[in-house]
């Protein structure tokens, strides 16, 4: 079923490209259609998830791929993966809709790349063979690179290159780690295997585990991203077209957090416990640094990008606080941040589409001319600063509660991130929405944009008011982390 899911996206991608030959407008309809078709296997996955037992993988598919190294095409899904795959598809729709009118140059190839990168991300969230995981991890970069490099704004080439090089650096280090892990496993068991379920039970010596873990950790942290590896993010987000910023912020960053929860923590429990205090400090630095940098930005997209650094710091903090609540919080934070930041990027994109500017100093008084857009912006700004009743609050609160048991001092420092978030978030609202009108009139949100925004509003409200179903699914995944048993 997972193979079908990826195949539908890839076939849709090819069809979208080819359909450009008939009519440039056909491509987006083909892309939309393929996302809708993908809902069929997705729906049966959700139904399966409701019926499956607490300890099992919901789906587990495997076929031999490279027999020389015993590499298999192994895809599997548990609660964590399911949540992130659902997020990916939801964000696919949002990205598609926000590109609907903005992209006019070579539409077919644009939607080809968009769907390919979605397929790659779904693959990353489902792959259980380390080599397969690595292949998806790298392959999703190429369409993303092209998306930024072709359809981005003025400084796009630099941003695209930087994005690719940073991620590739992490990827290569991870490749070394994967090789070392497999060879060490071979040494003790006499069998080459890249399979997650084989390698997770393998006991490494302390030093070996530390170095191998470090390779994975660096790759995931670059993707997350965490200070000092965050510099690619601001450029990539700022230069990418709106739809791509949405995918980047909502989905691609989550692959880093997913990697930590799926690979780095469960496979190297002892080494993770050892480095956890240091990582928590780094996470707090990231939270505060990201928030301060966000406050200093004049470019709206850059501001939102830096706020991502700050929010993803909470994910890292939650992952390495090593308590169930913090893990649940980290997972919920990935989802809530995905939705709220994607919405912010989409809104900034909408402003840019109308005024051709995203400079805070040039904007102002938008509420007087485009009230619907302004109301939406205000809502998501408030969500991003962690207003109770919305998803982000629940997530950050859980992370902080979970971390408090582990290290109160660090948690107090991290909590200051919430105050800083209020400062930079309110600055967005104040400088763009209120005050004297600096720019001319424009048209307000249309039906397409309103339905897009409302769906995200409802989702955030649901996460904020009734997060229990999500937390249950998350709990089922994190309670299986063997690291829990070691504590």
């Amino acid at each position, binding site marked *: 079923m997972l193979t079908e899911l990826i195949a539908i996206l890839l076939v849709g991608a090819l069809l979208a490209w080819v359909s450009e030959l008939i009519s440039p407008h056909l491509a987006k309809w083909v892309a939309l259609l393929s996302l809708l078709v993908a809902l069929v296997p997705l729906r049966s996955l959700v139904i399966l998830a409701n019926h499956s037992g607490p300890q099992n993988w919901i789906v587990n598919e495997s076929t031999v*791929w*490279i*027999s*020389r*190294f015993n590499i298999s095409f192994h895809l599997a899904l548990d609660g964590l993966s399911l949540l992130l795959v659902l997020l990916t598809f939801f964000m696919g729709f949002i990205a598609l809709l926000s590109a609907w009118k903005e992209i006019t140059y*070579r539409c077919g190839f644009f939607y080809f790349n968009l769907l390919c990168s979605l397929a790659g991300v779904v693959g990353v969230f489902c792959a259980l063979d380390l*080599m397969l995981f*690595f*292949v998806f991890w*790298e*392959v999703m*970069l*190429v369409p993303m*690179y*092209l998306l930024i*490099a*072709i359809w981005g704004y003025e400084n796009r*080439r630099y941003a*695209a*290159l930087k994005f*690719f*090089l940073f991620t*590739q*650096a992490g990827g*290569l*280090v991870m*490749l*070394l780690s994967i*090789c*070392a892990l*497999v*060879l*060490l496993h*071979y*040494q003790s068991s006499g069998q*080459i295997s890249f399979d997650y379920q084989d390698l997770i039970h393998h006991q490494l010596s302390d030093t070996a585990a530390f170095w191998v873990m470090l390779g994975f950790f660096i790759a995931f942290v670059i993707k997350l991203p965490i200070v000092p590896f965050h510099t690619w993010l601001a450029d990539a987000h700022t230069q990418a077209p709106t739809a791509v910023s949405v995918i980047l912020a909502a989905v691609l960053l989550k692959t880093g957090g997913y990697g930590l929860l799926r690979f780095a923590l469960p496979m190297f429990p002892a080494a993770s416990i050892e480095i956890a205090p240091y990582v928590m400090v780094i996470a707090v630095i990231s939270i505060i640094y990201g928030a301060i940098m966000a406050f200093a930005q004049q470019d709206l997209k850059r501001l939102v990008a830096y706020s991502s650094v700050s929010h993803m710091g909470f994910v890292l903090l939650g992952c390495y606080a090593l308590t169930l609540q913090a893990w649940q919080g980290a997972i919920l934070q990935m989802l809530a941040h995905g939705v709220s930041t994607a919405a912010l990027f989409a809104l900034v994109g909408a402003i840019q589409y109308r005024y051709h500017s995203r400079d805070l100093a040039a904007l102002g008084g938008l509420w007087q001319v485009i009230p619907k857009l302004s109301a939406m912006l205000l809502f998501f700004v408030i969500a991003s600063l962690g207003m109770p009743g919305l998803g982000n609050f629940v997530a950050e609160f859980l992370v902080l509660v979970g971390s408090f048991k582990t290290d109160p001092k660090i948690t107090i420092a991290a909590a200051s991130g919430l105050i800083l978030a209020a400062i930079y978030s309110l600055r967005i609202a104040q400088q763009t929405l209120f005050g004297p009108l600096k720019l001319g009139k424009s048209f307000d949100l249309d039906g397409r944009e309103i339905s897009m925004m409302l769906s995200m509003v409802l989702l955030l409200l649901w996460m904020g008011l009734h997060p229990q179903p999500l937390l249950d699914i998350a709990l089922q995944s994190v309670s299986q982390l063997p690291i829990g048993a070691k504590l």
Partner: protein
Amino acid sequence: MNQTFLPWIIISCSALLIMLFTAIKRDHLYNSMLCSSGLIIAFIAQVLVVKTEGYRSVLILVDSPTALLSALLILLALLVSLLLYPWLKSLNEPKEEYYILFLLATQGALIVAASDHFASFFLGLELLSLSIVPMIVYQDKKPKAQEAAVKYFVLSALASAFILMGVALLYFYTGSLSFSALTLDFSTLIEPNPKGASVAYQVALILLLVGIAFKLSMAPCHLWVADVFEGAPLPTAALLATLSKAAVFILLLRLFTQGHWQQYPTLITVLSMIAAASMLLGNLLALLQAQLLRLLAYSSIGHFGYLLLAVLAIQPVAGLSSVESLATEAAIYYLFAYTVTLLGVFLLLMLLAGQQSSVNFTIYRLRGLFWEQPCIAIMLAILFLSLAGIPLTIGFVGKFYLTFAAVNSQLWWLLGTLVISSLLGLFYYLRIILMMVEKPREVSQNSVAANVHNVLVLSFLALTVVGIGVFPGPLAALILEVVGS
């Protein structure tokens, strides 16, 4: 003599036949077909003998790995030969001689790859290099080509001199020119000073290595390569970059395994330094290079640095695990991946150059190619991604093999260099891809006729690079079987 030599006989006979026909009546088309069909038959014959038991004499050793690699060499020559006709037709030079030189160079490469004796090695090497020299100037009196040919000729002679000096020293100590006599037991030496003998022996090996490094254009013996690639006509440059280097690399692999070079620490240090320097220097020089052929030349320095990593990983002192023959497999796979990909790039450039005799390929010329010639541009992009080692291309499989073998042998600082230089490499490959997806200029210089011929060559390349990239299993199994036997 058995069927092992069938491919050699076919290739030599084709060369002789072309020579005879040329003496009687010059006919370009017939000779071109004769050359290609000879190579096709030789390739089939070579593939058929891969799994037979092979042949061994004093001079020549053809075992299964050698047979497989010879098949690769013939395949490379075959692919180039398919595109020779349109290019030669546009030249004002006598055309038939090129085919003779071409076939002789191929024969030389096969001899080098199969040699088991310094005599056959040297003969093969000279046949290869001396055939390539006139092929470099084969270009309507272009001064750059003449400069390149002189440079290649002089430096190649210098390299030969180094090799001969090394061989002479080896002969002095072993009394034999055979590769199998390379393993020297110093304790049984009658020599009064075994330590001195050991030093002299290692010096001899290093002299040999210098010569080989010249031929493989590895740092610090790489200075000729960029000028020659730029000055030579595209088919010759392709042959030089793939066939000639692959043959010499196969020889290096054989010398290393047969001579058990890993027991000489000095030699390993020198090799490691050459590898690291080649990786870094090659990629650094290519970084901001705007001339496409110079860029390819520098990147090939880097790639042979990577390949050296596989050689160094053979029979490690402290391996993480005892996966047998992994390093040899890695070397063969990477060699296959790299040469096929690079040849693909050259073939595409030949298609793009079309009828123009003097081409000046800057990367700016590729601007907007993706929107004008999507097929060619996509192929070129895939090939560059393969050179950069991005998954789902054959280049990634090669790089994965290499990393796996090197991690197994714990070559950590070389692996660190590999990571850094891969990133440098990625930078300039991505730059080219970026150039291709830029908005096109008004006037296009690139013209490609979409005839059956070109489509066939392109589809074969696409099938190899992406097909093996997605399903690397069969080739991996074949190499394992061949190396393990």
